[in-house]
């Protein structure tokens, strides 16, 4: 499908004199804005040779921050994908008063600045917050722990998976469910064997989008992490190292993060083309 779309792309009339200027402009504009900054991460990361790079990546604090980022991002992704599937199915199946209002509320978190999201979480889960004050009675604390980072990630990426799964559900022919039902399937069996497999592509895309957004999250995590080594995610580590003027250490981890993002992004493109038909 993509191939035909590509073939049909308008390629301009032959010998169009504007053509080289058009293409040249796009590439030139991207140079200082996108291409050079990305390239320089790898340039500075490997500036003192691969051994230095490897040393920087291998530092225990660096490894810890990468592990923490991967772990919190994964947990947040699983939570939001599960929520996204359930919410999308509920909104698809039922029409109720205020359903469009609920749709807006679900989609709201992406529109909120990440620092604001961090503050908002602090207000609820912090010591004087609604849940935070209840937790005071236990030994458990949420803010300034790994849990806080997961909460921040969940908040910031809340509607991403939902936003991909809901349209896929809307495109699903309702007669599939009817057919399964007449064949004797319960609601749960219908959902499991018929609805869910049809959403496979959307679920994977939604998960990757969520993960990609989580792994780079900075604004909200810096608010809730409490500037502790235990809660230092990879982006926070980069920031800290820059502040300490350890540019090589910072750029090395930045390069690793960039590569992870590239991989996730290519996977998104791949699933879009292959799994979503």
């Amino acid at each position, binding site marked *: 499908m993509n191939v035909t779309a590509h073939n049909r792309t308008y390629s301009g009339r032959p010998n169009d004199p504007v053509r080289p200027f058009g293409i040249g402009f796009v590439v030139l504009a991207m140079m200082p804005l996108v291409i050079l900054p990305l390239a320089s991460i790898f340039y500075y990361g490997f500036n003192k040779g691969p051994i230095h790079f490897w040393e920087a990546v291998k530092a225990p604090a660096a490894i810890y921050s990468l592990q923490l980022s991967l772990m919190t991002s994964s947990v947040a992704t699983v939570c939001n994908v599960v929520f996204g599937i359930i919410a999308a199915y509920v909104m698809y199946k039922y029409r109720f008063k205020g359903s469009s209002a609920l749709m807006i509320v679900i989609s709201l978190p992406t529109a909120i600045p990440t620092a604001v999201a961090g503050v908002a979480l602090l207000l609820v889960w912090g010591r004087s917050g609604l849940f935070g004050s209840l937790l005071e009675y236990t030994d458990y604390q949420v803010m300034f722990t790994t849990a806080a980072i997961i909460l921040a990630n969940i908040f910031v990426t809340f509607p991403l998976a939902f936003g991909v799964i809901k349209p896929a559900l809307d495109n699903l022919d309702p007669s599939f469910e009817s057919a*399964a039902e*007449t064949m*004797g399937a319960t609601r749960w069996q219908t959902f499991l064997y*018929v609805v869910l497999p049809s959403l496979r592509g959307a679920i994977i895309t939604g998960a990757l989008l969520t993960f990609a957004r989580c792994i780079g999250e900075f604004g909200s995590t810096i608010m809730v992490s409490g500037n502790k080594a235990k809660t230092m995610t990879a982006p926070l580590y980069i920031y800290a190292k820059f502040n300490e003027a350890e540019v090589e250490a910072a750029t090395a981890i930045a390069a690793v993060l960039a590569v992870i993002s590239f991989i996730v992004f290519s996977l998104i493109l791949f699933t879009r083309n292959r799994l979503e038909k």
Partner: protein
Amino acid sequence: MMAQAMLNQVYETEIYAEPAALKNNALIVNGLSKQFGSERVLDDISFSIAEGESLVLLGPSGSGKSTTLRLIAGLETPDGGDIFLHGRHIEHLRARERNIGVIFQNYALFPRMTVADNIAFGLKIRGVKRKTRDAKVEELLAMIGMTEHRDKYPSQISGGQQQRVAIARALAYKPELLLFDESFSALDPQTRTGLRREIRLLLQKLKIPAMFITHDQEEAMELGDQIAILNKGRLEQIGTPREVYDNPQTEFAATFLGAANVVEVCRNDGVELLDCRQCEALPTNDWQSPERVKIIFRPEDVVLSAATSLPEAEKHLGHGIVVDVNFTGALEVVRVKLLSLNQFGYLNSANCQNFDQPCDLIIKVLRTKWDAQRMPLNPKDKVGVWLRDHKMLENKL
């Protein structure tokens, strides 16, 4: 009220009498009604399907035929009426508890399952063991001639093949009734005719009762042991294709199953007068209180003859002027404009000649190529028009 009375009757007979009706009929639908908002889509529909027979619900879109199917399948809840499947009261059951197979309009094959997995689905849901399941699937694949396509996905097979798979998928769990929802409309005409014949044979072999819904009269004639004609949520007529075609009870039934000419006539004292204008225009004092009735006749029941030769004993429509002649292959379609106020069936009466003027009434006539060769017709020819057969609709104006 009526429905309630009938319902009570059915209950009583079911409990105390166990009549033949409940035993011999696979499906009984009694007084089924459904309303969507303020719109009454089904109004007191009753019919039955005998064991091993097929019924076609024929009607235009919006006639309520799809709703009837969805009510029987359990995909909608009726507002009133009863549904019995093999003597079992089912209208309160969920779709999955009814054991009915539905072949949807677009077949609704599960896109992420192979042909074999689609067929196995109903058995898997019922917890049938893998070995038994596989054997049954193989048997069904062989029956529909798709063994070599077992591992393909629905998007990789043709529309006709998809329909076969949909049927096999429904047959797998031995349904008590098969419902076909406009299942042929998406196929090209040749595949359609072939598949219809195959399905007819298959149903006869398996003796599974079936209900088809369609708006295609040709399909209805070919598939149905019985045809039920539905219009605006009401059942117009039910009977064998021949009964409905030869003896339509309503104008709608006549015009929807086959083509029909409908002519309004005025009748008084057993004498009918063809009325192109109004009954009030009738001139003589003999016609005190003329009654309006409609006569219905098929295009093939009309005989055209030379203007001067009209056999006296037959039912006449008097004279007409040929409007146009269309050759359609086996048959020729002639449209004839009738001349007004002819006395229906009494050509030689004194009144006739006086009113021999053109009117707006055009009838359609079918002639075989032999008739066409014997008496070639051209537009503006004057012809005598008489009927081999007609049907009068009493009090149905």
